[in-house]
């Protein structure tokens, strides 16, 4: 009965109630919520990889990216399982902070690749970046070389 009376009150009080390239805006958010506090940085990094949208483009396990028309990286968002070969930890963290606003084209006269790597400066703390870097390095397949 109380609920229906409340309904009446709520009703009375609350009712009614192309090819253009664009510059990315500076970050204004902050990733701070995690489902459970994680002590293991690799696990935390894995969680951030999914939450921050990395997995959307690089694939859920970082092995294969989605299509990115005319991107030099085989017209796909590149995999991230080989980053340990090309970056030192601090270099990778710096790259994630900075992002890559301009993706190199496969064909110079072709269209601008529609997807780019966003900057995470201001979104991730140093500890989170550290965890993400550790997770990405952990993906490197043992004994396997990069394919391109």
């Amino acid at each position, binding site marked *: *009965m109380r*609920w*229906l*009376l*409340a*309904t*009446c*009150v*709520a*009703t009375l*009080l*609350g*009712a*009614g*109630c*192309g*090819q*253009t*390239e*664009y*510059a*990315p*805006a*500076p*970050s*204004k*958010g*902050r*990733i*701070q*919520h995690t*489902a459970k506090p994680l002590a293991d940085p690799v696990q935390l990094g894995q969680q951030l990889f*999914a*939450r*921050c*949208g990395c*997995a*959307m*483009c690089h694939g*859920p396990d970082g092995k294969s990216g989605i299509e990115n028309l005319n991107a030099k990286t085989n017209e796909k968002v590149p995999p991230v399982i080989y980053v340990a070969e090309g970056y030192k930890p601090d270099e990778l963290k710096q790259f994630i902070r900075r*992002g890559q*606003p*301009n*993706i190199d084209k496969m064909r110079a006269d072709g*269209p*601008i*690749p*529609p*997807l*780019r*790597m*966003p*900057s995470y400066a201001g979104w991730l703390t140093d500890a989170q970046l550290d965890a993400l870097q550790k997770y990405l390095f952990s993906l490197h397949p043992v004994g396997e070389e990069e394919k391109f």
Partner: protein
Amino acid sequence: MWMLLVTAATVVLGLTWLRPPVCQPLAFSHAQHEKMACVMCHAGVESRARAGLPDIGTCVRCHATPPVKSAADIAAWNDTVQTRHIVWQRLRPVADHVYFSHRRHVDIGELQCATCHGDIATLTTPPPHALKPISMVNCLACHEEQHVLNDCARCHK
């Protein structure tokens, strides 16, 4: 008395569901983005009272070109880029005297967004109406179920 209450409930449902359909300025697909956390676009959802709605600066962090195909959608995107602001229409306006904090519900209460917003993450186009009705009845019922205080001043200024 019962007739009065039934009438009141009908009025509430009517006001909730018979609102004119909302038309958004961009054909945004939540489903395309559902793999990443809501906070990436709704920047305040975990840390502030207001979840916030993304402006075009959020979109162009990842999209270098218009992520739409039709001429009308591309024109709408280009217009938005010029103004730097997306005029999103609210699906569920909350009265001025009601205080609702997303931080309290998402970060502290650890509620899933779908609890109040329904399956919006699965939609490929903007919905014309809120997927779940918002009402004080629902708020009170959930608070009771979760053993959260239900005093008036908690939500009403």
